[in-house]
């Protein structure tokens, strides 16, 4: 993962960064319907369990394994006042960095990045950190997300015991 690719990337890192920063901004501002539009119809959104960061969330007891339907439902739910864990909405500020293009074909680009998310809610201030793994599909002059995987660099969810927002 640390080796430098021998074939120069056609897609520039700054184009990828621009896209990831845009995505982060949409979530931070709770523009979740627009965020959903960044995903393909066959997308998955995954968060593995903290004790099995390399496992397949489809076949293990992970934290999140959403297909398009569940991703839509997650967004619909989060925007309702009855989503009690997120009402009033938590405030988040996320930094996406260490962006690297790992692989690129005509159809897809594999990207990794680190994240730090600060979240304030109900008098608590929590930090979530980890690594993103993306599979992006070029579309027009930008990208769509076919797969987003957020691997938490936590050994358990403590003191921040819930992920009721998008990471």
């Amino acid at each position: 993962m640390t080796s430098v690719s021998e074939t120069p990337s056609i897609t520039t890192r700054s184009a990828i960064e621009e896209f990831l920063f845009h995505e982060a901004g949409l979530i931070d501002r709770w523009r979740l319907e627009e965020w959903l539009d960044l995903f393909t119809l066959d997308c998955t959104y995954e968060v593995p369990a903290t004790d099995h960061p390399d496992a397949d969330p489809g076949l293990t007891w992970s934290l999140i394994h959403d297909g398009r339907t569940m991703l839509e439902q997650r967004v619909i739910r989060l925007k309702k006042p009855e989503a009690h864990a997120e009402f009033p909405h938590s405030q988040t500020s996320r930094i996406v960095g260490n962006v690297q293009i790992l692989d690129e074909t005509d159809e897809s680009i594999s990207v990794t990045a680190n994240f730090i998310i600060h979240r304030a809610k109900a008098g608590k201030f929590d930090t979530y950190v980890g690594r993103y793994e993306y599979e992006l599909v070029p579309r027009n002059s930008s990208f769509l997300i076919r797969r987003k995987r957020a691997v938490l660099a936590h050994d358990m969810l403590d003191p921040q015991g819930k992920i009721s927002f998008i990471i």
Partner: protein
Amino acid sequence: MTAEQFIIDDRENNLFRVNREAFTSEDVLQRERKEIFGKTWLYVGHESEIPGKNDFQTRDVGGRPVIFNRDRHGDVRVLLNTCLHRGSSVCRHSSGNAKIFTCFYHGWAYRNSGELVNVPGNEDYKSEPAAVYKGLQSPAQVDSYRGLYFVNFDPDAPDLLTFLGEARYFIDLAADQSPEGVAILEGTHKYSLKANWKLLVENSIDGYHAKSVHHTHFEMMMELGATPPMLGKDTVNGIAPAGMGTEFPNGHATLMYPANGLPLATDSVKQTLAGLRAQAEQAFGENYANAMFGLARNSVFFPSLILIDLSFGLTLRTFYPVSASETLVTGWQIIPKGVDEEFVKYRIDNALTFWGPAGLATPDDVEALEQAQKGFGARGEVGWSDVSKGMGKPVPAANDELQMRSWWREWNRRITGEQLPTEGTSFVPFDKQGVDA
């Protein structure tokens, strides 16, 4: 000082109240550590988590660090994870495979069956430490039921089967779902909440909060073509759509209700489920298979083992207090063995719609409990919580609060010594003939 009174159990007016001090007092927690976590059977793990020789998992059970392992002979052990010399952990990994556990502090080494086998500088002792100290200690009692391992730190406590009593049938209904047995899936939900552990006990067997707290989950289920719990029309084995609550000796309790639609299920998934049901019918009869696959159940095994067995997932959860206002939760998913990958995926995806710290329902529970804990700040002015719903009904519904009252009476007995009568009789939702055989 009347602070000693934690429960008001008023049978005349059918009022049941819990003193909010029980949720906030560090003194109460110290008594719980001694009288409850020191004397009852506590869940450690399932045999499927340590399938091979020398496999281990490290856990915290009732505040004690333990190694749950299979030794080099294949025997399951629970060892207290503390070096006999000066206390350090002898195993610092969450899971793995090891024949020897070595304390990194001074290098004392133990076999995975516990014996102390190496002490650096052994010759400097007049009496050899191995002869004096033998090996890593185990809880006073270790026993298992249907692959679930429990420990008890009290040598005088009644045995596990006596403790579980009739409530064990709810473990059977889970364990019998495949002729090959069940297994814990890899991956653990491990998280903390800023609330007293007893709030999570109440919440885990509370059918009343479902409509208000999980409204958004119900709406989602309906959008996906499924019927939310307790809102169906069918009666299963005599249990009406509104379900029922039932209590057992020793503080165990269950609420059950007809299991409803299967969100996200494909034809193949339905076929697999029908196959499992047909096998159960053949092995145990229609009545038992109905209970197994036609009813959903939330059970608590005193003090804090929760088994939630719904048609779309089988979740096991246990939790222990860190302080009066903080709880560490561990959750697992159980899967019937021998089913195809599509079925496994379906169960996981369905269960994840609800459970866990990132599920579409559990975070709202956590929010409710943390808000309750905050509310207890006013306990000087508002001193009691109400747990009366359905009290006095001949058959309490699943959204009544008999389950909590049953649990609280046992808690109260262990903390204060006051023995209060139960409300009714235990009920098992199937004909047990043939099951015990």
